[in-house]
């Protein structure tokens, strides 16, 4: 493997790994803020106990999101220096603003929240977790603005003398339709992730016999399941918009995601397609007529461009070359994203129904409790794999190819060292984090006395 492949693997591994924690952090921050608000408003201790219980799980998860985020901030320069030189005038601004507006907010106020129990007035303390949550959301917005510019570059001009893209309209970058819809889709997915986590944990506790805390966990399971269902509807709506934009801006990505080799009008939605190994035509396919046209264009007889025609068109525009992403990766990541996300919604629906009927713990409940939190994590990862792998060979669509962005000065062995180093470190940390989460979930809700406000003793909870 050369430095390019190694750098791409490194970006893929570190980013997918980072994004296991991020949606849970965003979603749980709001859930915990909501639980604490319920406590402050009602004074009902069950909300306080849930706040502390899920708050602690939130903190365990937050730590890994933070430390893996540091790598994200630096690896553009480390592994993608020519990319950084080319786009820095545009891409750097949202990154810097993310740090200044979002990272400071979330980290500072989270510190106040952890250590502020019993020290800050109740409402001020409540405000700190809301500010943390807002910080996580701002962070998502700015980083997605940066990513969306790579999908659909707007508000720039190419300066041939300087050999780089230059910003001409920052507002256009901030309000690019791709950025807005990607942000919404991601935030809703984060709520879905957190809802599934809250529900899955509660379900697991219920199945293991929560004893006198049973009613509290039933409440938590309901809160989680409703969050999943509401979020799922919003994920579908925003995802549908995103699909239409993708078809308009990056038709090749949609064609690859659907393994649609030839332009069709109307186009059918593929249920199962097998193509040739060289990715040039389809061998076998089951398709539902007209549905892809509707998803991609909003009309049942809309024209959807195919891989072969787009390839010819791009070769004419950008010069000879292969402009197709790896089609099976796009095709399957698209299906797995929808499949795992959809399964989470179905599981949540089943759960609400079962809770209503008085849910008796059995091995299915345990299994559902274990699997439910994992489904959205998988869906989030597949979504990003589709987004990023489907854009290839471009690093900035239509402007710069990925192969031109890699650092010329780093030797392959150096990239290999950091790739292996980060992967081993991240793997070990994953084991530690899962162990801690399971341990804390097993310990159950904190005893009512432990959550007493007067206890200066900071935090049975954190330190």
């Amino acid at each position, binding site marked *: 493997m050369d430095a390019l492949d190694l750098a791409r693997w490194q970006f893929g591994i570190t980013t997918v790994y980072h994004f296991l924690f991020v949606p849970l952090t965003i979603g749980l921050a709001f859930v915990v803020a909501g639980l604490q608000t319920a406590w402050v408003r009602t004074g009902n201790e069950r909300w306080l106990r849930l706040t502390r219980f899920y708050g*602690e799980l939130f903190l*365990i998860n937050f*730590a*890994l999101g933070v*430390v*893996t*985020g*540091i*790598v994200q*901030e*630096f690896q*553009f*320069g*480390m592994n993608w*220096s020519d990319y*950084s*030189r080319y786009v*820095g*005038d*545009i*891409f*750097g*601004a949202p*990154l*810097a*603003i*993310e*740090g*200044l507006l979002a*990272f*400071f907010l979330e*980290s*500072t*106020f*989270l*510190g*106040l929240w*952890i*250590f*502020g129990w019993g020290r800050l007035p109740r409402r001020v303390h409540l405000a700190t977790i809301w500010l943390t949550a807002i910080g996580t959301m701002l962070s998502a917005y700015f980083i997605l603005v940066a990513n969306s510019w790579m999908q659909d570059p707007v508000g720039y001009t190419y300066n041939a003398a300087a050999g*780089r893209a*230059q*910003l001409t309209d*920052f507002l256009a970058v901030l309000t690019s339709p791709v950025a807005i819809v990607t942000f919404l889709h991601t935030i809703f997915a984060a709520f879905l992730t957190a809802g599934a986590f809250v529900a899955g944990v509660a379900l697991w506790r219920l199945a293991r016999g929560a004893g006198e805390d049973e009613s509290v966990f039933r409440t938590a399971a309901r809160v989680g399941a409703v969050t999943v269902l509401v979020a799922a509807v919003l994920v579908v709506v925003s995802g549908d918009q995103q699909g239409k934009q993708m078809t308009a801006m990056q038709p090749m990505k949609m064609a690859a995601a659907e393994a649609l080799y030839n332009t069709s009008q109307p186009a059918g939605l593929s249920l199962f397609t097998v193509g040739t190994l060289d990715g040039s035509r389809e061998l076998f396919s089951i398709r539902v007529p007209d549905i892809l046209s509707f998803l991609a264009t909003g009309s049942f007889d809309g024209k959807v461009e195919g891989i072969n025609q787009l390839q010819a068109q791009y070769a004419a525009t950008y010069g000879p070359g292969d402009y197709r992403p790896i089609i099976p990766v796009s095709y399957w990541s698209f299906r797995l994203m929808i499949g795992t996300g959809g399964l989470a919604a179905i599981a949540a629906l089943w759960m609400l129904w079962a809770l209503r009927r008085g849910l008796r713990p059995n091995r299915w409940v345990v299994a559902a409790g274990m699997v439910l939190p994992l489904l959205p994590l998988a869906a989030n990862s597949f979504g990003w794999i589709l987004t990023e792998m489907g854009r290839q060979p471009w690093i900035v669509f239509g402007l710069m190819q990925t192969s031109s962005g890699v*650092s*010329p*000065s*780093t030797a392959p062995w150096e990239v290999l060292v*950091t790739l292996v*180093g980060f992967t081993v*470190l991240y793997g070990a940390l994953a084991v*530690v984090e899962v162990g*801690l989460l399971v341990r804390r979930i097993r*310990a159950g809700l*904190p*005893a009512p006395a*432990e959550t007493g406000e007067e206890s200066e003793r*900071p935090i049975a*909870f954190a*330190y």
Partner: protein
Amino acid sequence: MALTDIWFGLIAVLWVGYLVLDGFDFGVGILLPVLGRSEGERRLMLRTIGPVWDGNEVWVLVAGGATFAAFPAWYASLFSGFYLALFLVLVGLILRGVAIEYRNKRPEPTWRTRWDRAVFVGSLLPAILWGVAFANIVAGVPLDAHHDYTGTLLTLLNPFGLLGGLTTLGLFVTHGATFLALKTEGDIRTRANRLAGQTGLVTAVLAVAFLAWTQVQRGDAASLAVSVLAAVAFVGALVANRLGREGWSFIGTAATIALAVVALFAALYPDVLPSTTNAAYSLTTTNAASTDYTLSIMTVVAVVFTPIVLIYQGWTYWVFRKRLSMQLVGDEEPAAHGA
């Protein structure tokens, strides 16, 4: 004043903020096995930085992001060039962050001992390597015509770079000790105070040698003046420490680090990364910069939001201003629920 100069100054401010604030976090982490003689003392030490270390660390993320936005070519050459050194810094920061957050999540002594080691190593690596990095930035590194680094990790570990690393190590340890003396009560406060005096003397020698060598290499009148001020501040810090005036002593070590960073940036200007291969290949505030349009947007954002950040971060320090005593962490066994 050109926008590029303003941004050179702002980047310096961000690094000052980072190294002053995370500097004492590093110091506390390195001193953990030295001053923390019992489990309770180690917990107390980590409690002093507990509410603030994460916010302190964000300064480096903003410094990195702002460099990307304002001087993309600097960001690109520096981070791809100092590749393995930066990797080690990142590994250190990851270890330290996870260790601080996770060490108290389980009661077993072996669990805690392991994370305490991670805090130590994760603080030591960046404390040395930031000094190595800044020394090399100021002295210059081999850059080709494309501004790409042509050296290796060993190129950075030259005598001047290593002296820089030892200087930041000494400064952060002393800074961390004055912070601990300021934030604790009782026996540990006394020992932190004494230790600050001892490491301070060694650090004074290292820092004077490093700043003098910097001055010989590429200093001007401004960097000389600031270097002298840094030395004066450090002497003040040590005197205050001896007199038991811990607040002044901490202000002194903070001012020393701040002034030393300013001196380095003053010596560096108008380059941002000099090339030792050929002066024409050097990156400067002008050839590494973004467009004036981007810089003016970023200036507005920085002018509006930096004061807000300073206010709420300052408020955090105010909320947690009390000295911590051993009573707080107690010698009780960690509660079953995690403590």
